[in-house]
């Protein structure tokens, strides 16, 4: 039988299948952070189990860290304790840690690819749902709970049922001002927030192929927002060019062997999927969300749906009430108070370049607070080397230090109750960016233009 990319990698990682349909599934790389690992380390301790192989784990502090003055002790006592706990656990078990202040520190899904830890054909897990990001390299990567974190620590394996397979094909060329973020927001709006539950998605087609690795990461990152277990894209020359020479990537002869293997990782002609969806790139416009789940997205110059199926009406109206919007309304002209550019979805150098390029010589609106949080120390350093920090500062944007920041507001970067924030992150859930905060998800380009105009605008009018 013809195999898909997913089949090839899954099959290569089955240790054994047990009666009833579950697989003992082998994990190549395990990424951990301060929030979802402490209880797992405790579980090892309580059960008196050793760590299976510390060399297959990489740790970083990202979720709750401050984005200013990272050289100083963390002010928030609980956050400091959690980060200290990660440090002491890593020391005790011999796990490599990119802690605060380390030149490789950053958001776990930014540093994995950046350091070449993420590679085609791998299985990668992390106690974080956006682990799907790594699928951009042709890996099977997905988020797990803390009990599973402990299982991987103890055995390098998980007990899993094989998900169903979906292929989403996007053909053609994206229009001007339409980015990878718009592409995935469009797909999620089409499928709905639970539309891919139970599936592992492969993205294919010429529009996907022509994305940069950063763009592919943005697409795969948000797979979870339509319920998918993960998303992946077959590796190609783009992938190899990105990876070659990165610190953890194979070197020399081993690189050549790796390439030979990675070139076998693609979906064969005629291989079957449980679901197939096709979209045209030309149909996609710059997107924005208006509600409280990522499936509630529209083209920025479109209007909020006036009618929804009766069974969904109560949840839909609850959502609009929270956002302070009405059915059938346009978002154009709505005043925005905050712009957040960051998160594992859009905090890479390409995103920062795009923002800097647009705001160069312009100035943010007076009533807008514009925060840029780079995905990693490396991204921050590169932005400074390229002089982006100056361009951004001149436009009134504050370039912070790396972390998850206002994406989930575990640290002090919170959007106040009732305020509107155009955010390049991945979730617009109620209170996600702070209690009462109202989030509108969009691309870095939309975010940059919004910051300058101080309100939602039809961005196509602002591109030269």
């Amino acid at each position, binding site marked *: 039988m013809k195999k898909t990319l997913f089949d090839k990698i899954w099959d290569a990682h089955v240790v054994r299948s047990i009666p009833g349909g579950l697989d003992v599934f082998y994990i190549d790389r395990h990424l951990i952070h301060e929030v979802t690992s402490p209880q797992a380390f405790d579980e090892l301790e309580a059960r008196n189990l050793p760590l299976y192989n510390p060399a297959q784990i990489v740790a970083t502090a990202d979720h709750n860290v401050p984005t200013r003055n990272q050289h100083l002790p963390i002010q928030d006592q609980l956050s400091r304790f959690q980060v200290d706990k990660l440090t002491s656990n890593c020391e005790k078990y011999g796990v490599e840690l990119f802690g605060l202040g380390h030149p490789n520190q950053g958001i776990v899904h930014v540093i994995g690819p950046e350091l070449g830890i993420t590679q085609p054909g791998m299985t990668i897990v992390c106690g974080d749902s956006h682990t799907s990001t790594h699928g951009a390299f042709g890996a099977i990567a997905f988020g*797990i709970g803390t009990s599973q974190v402990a299982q991987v620590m103890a055995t390098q*394996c*998980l007990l899993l049922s094989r998900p169903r397979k979906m292929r989403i094909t996007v053909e053609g060329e994206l229009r001007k001002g339409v980015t990878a973020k718009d592409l995935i927001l469009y797909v999620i709006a089409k499928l709905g927030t639970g539309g891919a539950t139970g599936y592992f998605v492969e993205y294919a087609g010429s529009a996907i192929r022509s994305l940069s690795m950063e763009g592919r990461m943005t697409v795969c990152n948000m797979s979870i927002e339509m319920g998918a277990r993960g998303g992946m894209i077959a590796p190609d020359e783009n992938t190899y060019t990105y990876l070659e020479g990165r610190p953890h990537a194979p070197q020399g002869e081993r690189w050549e062997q790796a390439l030979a293997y990675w070139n076998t990782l693609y979906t064969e002609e005629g291989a079957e999927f449980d679901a197939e969806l096709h979209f045209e790139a030309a149909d996609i416009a710059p997107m924005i969300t208006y509600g409280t789940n990522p499936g509630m997205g529209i083209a920025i110059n479109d209007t909020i749906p006036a009618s929804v199926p009766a069974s969904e009406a109560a949840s839909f109206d609850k959502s609009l009430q929270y956002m302070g919007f009405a059915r059938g309304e346009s978002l154009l002209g709505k005043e925005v108070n905050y712009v957040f550019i960051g998160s594992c979805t859009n905090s890479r150098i390409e995103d920062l370049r795009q923002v800097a390029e647009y705001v160069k010589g312009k100035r943010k609106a007076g009533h807008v607070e514009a925060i840029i949080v780079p995905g990693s120390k490396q991204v921050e350093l590169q932005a400074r080397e390229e002089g982006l920090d100056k361009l951004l500062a001149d436009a009134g944007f504050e370039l912070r230090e790396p972390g998850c920041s206002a994406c989930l507001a575990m640290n002090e970067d919170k959007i106040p109750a009732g305020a509107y924030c155009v955010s390049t992150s991945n979730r617009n859930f109620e209170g*996600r960016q702070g209690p009462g905060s109202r989030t509108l998800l969009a691309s870095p380009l939309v975010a940059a233009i919004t910051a300058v105009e101080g309100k939602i605008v039809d961005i196509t009018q602002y591109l030269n």
Partner: protein
Amino acid sequence: MEKFEIIRTGAVPMPIENIDTDQIIPARFLKATSREGFGENLFRDWRYDSDGEPKTDFVLNSSRYKGQVLLAGKNFGCGSSREHAAWAIYDAGFRVVISSYFADIFRGNALNNGLLPLQVTDEVLQRLFALVEADPQTEFEVNLPEQELYLPASGERISFEIDPYKKECLIKGYDDIDFLVSQKEAITAYESTRAWTY
């Protein structure tokens, strides 16, 4: 993990779709390093106002509904992988969540903590909401060995699906980690025969 067999209890209805794990337990409460105590902040921002006062219109603050079954709209548990969501629901005294479907990671997390995610059809779910609304004392008997949801008032029996291995784990109180540790030999054998290693 606590064993699960048969429970007979009331239900707390939350007819809201796409309840995400940020609502179940907001991120700012994830700074604890133990598994205990999350129940206190279950549905924190729906349950309490900004001054910490209970919101009287929220179902968990009502004396009308009591029980160990949480009855929730479709796509329950979407969003973040935080297992804290399952811990918080369990810690608040629930043993079963009934919905017409669950987000994958939440389902797994629930099963790993002795919390049964019980999936019914949309049609059945709407009927259960109506029953509980009409009579808040409506009893639910969840019989895991028989894979059956029994409604004593009407005598109706609704069967549900669960992975046979997961069912056994819940009934016996076993964790996956016990099983995986027992597979060590197979795991090392696998490692020695891989075509490509990382």
